[in-house]
């Protein structure tokens, strides 16, 4: 056990004394979160886009429309419910207001006994925007009631939720970037392994009585520690700076982070089995991680992709890790049910590790 500890410490020192490696493992993902967070969190000066679905087409609904249109913070776009839902899922708009048919009739009666409910679709993971829109809608509904029915509640608001996969949504990005960081730390692990083999370090250690599993175990321990730190950093920044609402339990998130890191480490070990030189490893690792980063729905919503690209994305393990993290952390939309995500990640972990264990060469 003492040996394992010393080896792990040796690995940690090797990492912390290597500025380039530090940059890639810690600062790069943090930089990503900060950059995208700042770029896309801003509800600041820009208007909140809201879909307007008028199912009443009456004077009353026109009145409501004008009331909303006069709110400087909102920008309305009209369409059918289906059109607006699609737009919201794509992140084009942040909320939908549905005016039910029969509003005019309710207003005409003004006896205070019947009422109509405005449908308001918001995305609970988009905390700030959702609060703003809910506030405005409540205020206008209230004003409407005061003006036309002396305060009796003829117009109610029915709160509905619809998740959006929105690029401008930091809550979507935080789990995505965490998935990216885990993918990179796993796949990049191939490079030092190939390097150590090429330089004969593995061979030299092979000439000592050290059991090989300890060498592998110390490597895995180091990477899992890095994964945990990356997770804390990225989630921490999301919460502290961008007010992301994390709904998942710590245990579930930690488990998922370790599973994801494990699956990609297994892929890294498998790569290290087949790559011979450090240059080769650096090249191949980039060729694998770059496209995976962009094709797995991390920065672009899955629904944005043409269907053939979606089929490609469905082959990539990163898609499922990002999907699982989004589901667990922020209740995001799903590409596949959580169980399927976990099964696929476990599959990658087991298969790659089994093949790597058979094919890995120490020299």
């Amino acid at each position, binding site marked *: 056990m*003492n*040996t394992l500890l*010393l*080896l792990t410490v*040796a690995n940690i*020192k*090797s990492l912390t*004394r*290597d500025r380039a490696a530090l940059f890639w493992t810690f600062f790069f993902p943090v930089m990503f979160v900060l950059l995208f967070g700042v770029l896309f969190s801003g509800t600041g000066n820009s208007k909140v886009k809201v879909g307007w679905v008028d199912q009443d087409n009456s004077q009353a609904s026109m009145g409501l429309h004008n009331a909303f249109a006069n709110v400087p913070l909102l920008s309305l776009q009209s369409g059918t419910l289906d059109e607006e839902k699609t737009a919201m899922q794509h992140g084009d708009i942040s909320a939908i207001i549905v005016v039910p048919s029969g509003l005019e009739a309710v207003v005409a009666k003004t006896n205070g006994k019947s009422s109509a409910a405005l449908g308001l679709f918001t995305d609970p993971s988009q905390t700030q925007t959702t609060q703003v829109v809910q506030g405005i809608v409540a205020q206008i509904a209230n004003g409407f009631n005061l003006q036309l029915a002396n305060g009796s509640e003829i117009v109610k608001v029915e709160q509905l939720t619809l998740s959006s996969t929105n690029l401008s949504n930091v809550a979507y990005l935080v789990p995505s970037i965490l998935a990216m960081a885990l993918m990179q730390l796993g796949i990049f692990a191939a490079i030092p392994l190939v390097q150590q083999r090429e*330089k*004969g*370090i593995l*061979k*030299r*250690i*092979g*000439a*000592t*009585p*050290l059991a090989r599993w300890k060498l592998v175990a110390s490597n895995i321990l180091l990477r899992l520690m890095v994964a945990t730190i990356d997770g804390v950093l990225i989630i921490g920044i999301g919460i502290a700076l961008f007010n992301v609402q994390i709904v998942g339990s710590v245990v579930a998130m930690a488990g998922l982070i370790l599973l994801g890191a494990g699956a990609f480490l297994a892929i890294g070990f498998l790569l290290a089995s087949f790559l011979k030189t450090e240059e080769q490893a650096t090249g191949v690792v980039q060729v694998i991680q770059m496209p995976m980063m962009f094709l797995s729905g991390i920065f672009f919503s899955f629904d944005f992709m043409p269907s053939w690209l979606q089929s490609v994305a469905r082959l990539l393990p990163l898609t499922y890790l990002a999907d699982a993290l989004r589901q667990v952390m922020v209740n995001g939309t799903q590409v596949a049910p959580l169980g399927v995500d976990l099964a696929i990640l476990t599959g990658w972990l087991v298969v790659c590790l089994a093949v790597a264990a058979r094919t890995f060469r120490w*020299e």
Partner: protein
Amino acid sequence: MTESGEPVIRVADLYKCYGDVKAVDGVSFTVAPGEVFGMLGPNGAGKTTTIEILEGLRRPDSGAVTVFGMDVTRHAESIKQRTGVQLQTVSLYPRLTVTELLDLFGSFYERHLPTKQLIDAVDLGERAKARSMNLSGGQQQRLSIALALVNDPELIFLDEPTTGLDPQARRSLWDLVKGLQSRGKTVMLTTHYMEEAAELCDRVAIMDHGHILEMGTVPELIGRRFKERAVFFDTTPQLPMDRLSKLDGVTRASQEDGQTLLYSRDVPGTIGTLLALADGLGVEPHNLGIRQATLEDVFLDLTGRALRD
């Protein structure tokens, strides 16, 4: 512990192929306790493969290989506890310091020497806190020896310990190896430096193309082939070989890189007739000299080529 007289290393009919290449093609030898045994040969001769089989890093195709009387494939673990290994490649965890590396490697063994003692033994005291990547070539090589000594081994393998070192660093490494020998350690080393083999080794095996061509003490190897001494000189143009080989006392003649080498049983006679020949052709020999035959000559004679390349 090895019983006295019982060889530390015993290799009989060792074969090892890589695909079609016969790296080791029927090698047999023994190394006695306390002996410094050298394997000499050019790159690709099979030295490293042989030593790596003994270190437990490779499996032999066939042949009996025992260290401390134990089979290398079946008892690799216990053999590794009692041997020290220095490989050609030296860069180990470049960002760890000398002290950290020695502590780490020590932890791999059931028993190990104090790090301070090892650092002093290889004279790296001033660099104890330096990262191994910042050491000079000679210092890295000494660290690599210290790592090989970490478990106070009875048998130490050194694979080309001085390749790439300047003459001064090489000298200090030789002193280290001699120190090991005086402490009763058994050492097996490979080299392609004749001087190194002659300086350090009790016995030498000359290897080429997977075979041991000749084995024995250095004086034995030279005496077995060369009763003669060598007369050497430069001329421009070179003198005709057929005339040179007929000079008094000459048994063999060779020319390489402008230098002519005559092996002679009668040095005064050879020089006398050489000067007469040169004078007759109007050529003056430069840098004329006489020396005893060396390992280099033995190797040249055995393989038909010089070892340097």
